């Protein structure tokens, strides 16, 4: 009864904070688009491309490979799978090389051959040219292939349809076995699938992937293996592995931390007390970011939460230093100044992040600063009455004897410099490398990326590499500009600079070009006369070419086609990603295949109006390099701000030096450990190191307190060990994650905070003799 009454205010506050946090999240616009985290690309075209690659058509493309069985079996499986997938209705496109085009596509291309074919010129319809065509047709008719020639030969003696089909089928290095695409250099059947749903729709991705796997199983694959790749699969796998990691970790760390706190404070209420400032900090920080930026970026939120890990220590510091039965003012009197200084320097240290060049990191900075201040305020003003009411305090302050024995170690603390010197030596011998490739920061494992690249190369599917963007006020303007580039691209292909290029104008001529072709077509009477003349002495009956004459006549009168008129999903799926509208402007993409000479390719587009050449990889990595370089700048600002705060707060240069020394020692050791593991330092490391430094600063400041008796020092040591154990139990566990990104955070935090505890104890605390010689200071 009594216990329940004591617990009531804490539980009520806990529930109120929980409610407030949950309510807040209903009003937060949480966005998961990485584009919001990264800075705007230097060029407009680059920015557009990044957006397109992240959310546009490329994200719905899946690459499928089949291997591990005889080619004939793989071809059979490929055919069975394609039929099943096409019937599922889940896919906009299922292509495995079979039979070229479906009847819809064939009808469209055949019906519009005189508008679409580049062979339509006045000369092609002259008597001489027609005579040649008719002689050739007669040859083919008398050959063994005659029965096939009859299908199109009379309706299309000039071969316009064949040339259109060639345009649509060229490209892709895949070879054909049993009519199914195979990799040119491996026994692997290939398939290209486009989901109807966007690549960012995780549920649809799961269903599409399940459909592919089901189709594979249904094709009785035997020993064959299925490979599936594509942005959607990456996103899904990354999400799945992060989710499973986080679930496992949060269960494990909650159990461990709860166990530790129960052991230390013998009250489950401590858990609720600790949760209150953290929840309030998250809520207030999220609201602040929302108000300032208009939305909260998902990754920034994740990093921000990491940074707020330091605030878990605040209530523990308060409760851990309380003597049982003590009034709130007593505890605050003892730890208040140090606590204030720790909060002030931690938040000033984070202010540097506001100067980061990555918009996402600025969000992290705002989130962390506001969160730290909110958590500190809650700890300072909200918690004390609750803690006193429930009389929460450590079970025991710890034995002063043991403390003194431990503090005795500080006599030999100069030896503590040995590991620091060793770490410095490591850094000299193996200087940590900076991460320069943004791809390595991706949550997709390296082998997944390698498979994706291989499948793309084999299929001739566009890759995220180099691209030229054509800009125009209308579809027509873009297509006309692209048409001027067609000869340029052909020259590049002839010169082996590239293997080829995908662009809308290759498939869909501009209205101007179509009108020119219409003008080149002879009228009905003229064509009949010329055919008669051309067919002189040949055995063709005049009526034989009636369909030809009718189709030419119809083509002359037809309204020119636009990309929107493509009445075949298979063909439309090819053109759509190459031509799209954003904010009232039309863009056309020129996607080169098989680039052998990047410089020559870039040079070919230089100076062409309305065309921008983008090297996406270079642009992204350039952004990364800029951001990393920039990080050192804001880290210096952080360090400077922290030192100023310490100098003002401590007013004792030797203590300032000891605190900074302890932090620096831990920093050097942590970076050395990272260098030894072969890690390349990335922005993630930098942010994580900063978090570890913030935690370490707390430790050092509390160890550096003066005018405290042995009992209080023992309490401090126990409390800080508790804090560090909590950190290791949460962040340290990340080291065992499957997700590389989370592992990247885990190791530096574990090493950084633990070494900060050791060095803080050794260096920041006063030497026992020195303290006896001159108490106070």
């Amino acid at each position, binding site marked *: 009864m009594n216990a329940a009454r004591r617990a009531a205010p804490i539980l009520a506050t806990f529930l109120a904070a929980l409610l407030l946090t949950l309510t807040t999240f209903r009003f937060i616009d949480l966005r998961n688009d990485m584009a919001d985290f990264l800075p705007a690309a230097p060029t407009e075209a680059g920015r557009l491309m990044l957006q397109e690659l992240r959310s546009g058509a490329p994200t719905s493309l899946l690459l499928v490979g089949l291997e591990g069985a005889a080619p004939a079996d793989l071809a059979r499986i490929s055919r069975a799978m394609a039929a099943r997938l096409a019937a599922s209705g889940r896919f906009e496109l299922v292509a495995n090389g*079979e039979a070229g085009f479906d009847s819809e596509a064939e009808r469209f291309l055949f019906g519009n051959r005189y508008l679409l074919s580049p062979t339509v010129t006045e000369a092609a319809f002259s008597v001489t040219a027609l005579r040649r065509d008719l002689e050739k047709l007669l040859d083919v*008719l008398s050959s063994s292939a005659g029965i096939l020639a*009859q299908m199109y030969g009379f309706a299309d003696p000039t071969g316009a349809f064949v040339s259109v089909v060639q345009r649509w089928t060229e490209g892709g290095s895949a070879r054909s076995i049993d009519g199914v695409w195979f990799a040119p250099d491996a026994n692997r059947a290939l398939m290209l699938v486009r989901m109807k749903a966007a690549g960012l729709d995780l549920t649809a991705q799961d269903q599409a992937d399940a459909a592919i796997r089901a189709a594979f199983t249904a094709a009785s694959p035997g020993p064959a293996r299925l490979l599936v790749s594509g942005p959607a699969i990456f996103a899904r796998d990354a999400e799945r592995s992060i989710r499973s990691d986080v679930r496992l970790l949060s269960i494990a760390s909650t159990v461990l931390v709860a166990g530790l706190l129960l052991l230390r404070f013998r009250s489950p209420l401590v858990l609720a007390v600790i949760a209150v400032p953290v929840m309030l900090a998250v809520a207030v920080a999220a609201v602040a970011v929302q108000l300032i930026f208009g939305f909260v970026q998902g990754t920034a939120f994740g990093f921000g939460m990491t940074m707020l890990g330091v605030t878990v220590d605040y209530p523990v510091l308060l409760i851990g230093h309380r003597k049982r039965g003590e009034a709130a003012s007593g505890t605050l009197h003892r730890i208040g100044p140090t606590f204030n200084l720790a909060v002030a320097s931690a938040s000033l240290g984070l202010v540097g992040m506001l100067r980061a060049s990555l918009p996402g990191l600025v969000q992290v900075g705002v989130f962390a600063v506001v969160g730290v201040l909110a958590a500190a305020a809650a700890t300072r003003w909200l918690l004390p009455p609750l803690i006193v009411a429930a009389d929460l305090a450590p079970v025991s302050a710890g034995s002063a004897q043991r403390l003194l024995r431990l503090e005795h170690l500080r006599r030999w603390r100069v030896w503590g410099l040995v590991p620091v010197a060793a770490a410095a030596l490591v850094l000299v011998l193996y200087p940590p490398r900076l991460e320069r490739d943004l791809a390595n920061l991706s949550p997709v494992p390296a082998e997944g990326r390698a498979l994706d690249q291989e499948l793309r190369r084999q299929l001739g599917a566009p890759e995220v590499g180099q691209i030229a963007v054509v800009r125009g006020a209308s579809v027509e303007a873009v297509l006309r500009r692209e048409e001027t580039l067609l000869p340029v691209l052909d020259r590049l292909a002839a010169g082996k600079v590239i293997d080829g290029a995908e662009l809308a104008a290759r498939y869909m001529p501009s209205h101007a070009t179509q009108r020119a072709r219409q003008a080149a077509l002879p009228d009905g009477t003229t064509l009949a006369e010329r055919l008669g003349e051309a067919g002189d002495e040949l055995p063709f009956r005049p*009526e034989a070419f009636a*369909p030809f004459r009718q189709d030419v006549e119809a083509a002359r009168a037809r309204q020119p086609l636009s990309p929107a008129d493509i009445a075949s999903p298979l063909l439309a799926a090819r053109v759509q990603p190459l031509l799209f509208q954003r904010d009232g402007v039309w863009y056309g993409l020129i996607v080169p295949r098989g680039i052998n000479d990047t410089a020559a390719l870039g040079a070919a587009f230089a100076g062409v109006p309305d065309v921008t050449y983008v090297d996406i990889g270079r642009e992204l990595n350039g952004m990364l390099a800029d951001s990393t370089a920039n990080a050192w700048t804001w880290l210096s600002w952080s360090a400077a701000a922290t030192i100023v705060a310490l100098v003002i707060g401590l007013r004792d240069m030797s203590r300032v030096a000891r605190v900074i020394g302890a932090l620096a020692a831990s920093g050097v050791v942590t970076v050395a450990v990272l260098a030894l593991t072969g890690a390349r330092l990335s922005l993630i490391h930098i942010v994580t190191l900063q978090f570890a430094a913030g935690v370490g600063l707390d430790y050092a400041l509390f160890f550096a307190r003066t005018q405290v008796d042995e009992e209080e020092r023992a309490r401090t040591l126990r409390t800080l060990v508790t804090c560090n154990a909590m950190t290791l139990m949460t962040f340290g566990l990340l080291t065992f994650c499957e997700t590389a990104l989370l592992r990247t955070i885990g190791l530096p935090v574990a090493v950084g905070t633990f070494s900060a505890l050791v060095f803080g104890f050794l260096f920041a605390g006063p030497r026992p003799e020195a303290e006896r010689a001159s108490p106070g200071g």
Partner: protein
Amino acid sequence: MLLHHPAPLLAAASAAEPPPAWFAQLMAQLAAIPERHETFREEKRLAALNRPLLSEGQLIYRRPSYLEKLTILPRKEILLVQDDQLTLTGPDGSPRELSLASRPEIGVLVDAVGGTLSGDVRRLQRSYTVHPSGTLQDWQLALVPIHPRVQEMLRQIVIRGSGPAIRSVLTEQANGDAQIMLIERSRSAEGPQTFAGTQADTHQPGVAGPARTPQAGPKP
């Protein structure tokens, strides 16, 4: 006299009849022949042309699935089918290859000849309903395609022969065009049959009828 019987299309419409007793015997005789060297003369009658197209050459078959059609006149051309791979080498000497699995409509045409030559009933029945008629000494197999897509192009193939010797292959297209290939053993003294003679006996309209517009483009 190529066709003694009413058009097999009528037979196809009636209920499936059991094959005559000699049919299995014929298939076994055909299957027993490991290799053939024969000459052929081919005549194509197209509605679009006012005279037939003639060609001649040699046929080579090896059990179970090697088939070579070597056209000598009017132009040299080699059509080679080996297992699933078809290669057509024109007068310019450049071979065009394609896999039969990828082009079912061509695969069906090859099945008719290949299936008959190897006495492989199952291969024939994969693509056609088979209507045998006549006697073992003067037999006729009318092959009517099963698949609607093939039916759009091909009405039927009628193969005639005497015992294990194949005499002629008549291919009738859906649009009424037809071609007949007359086959003789190499260096045979037997007098050649003529296309015109056989033509008069067919009950199929179209070939000899008024010129018709050839098929234009893909079906809607």
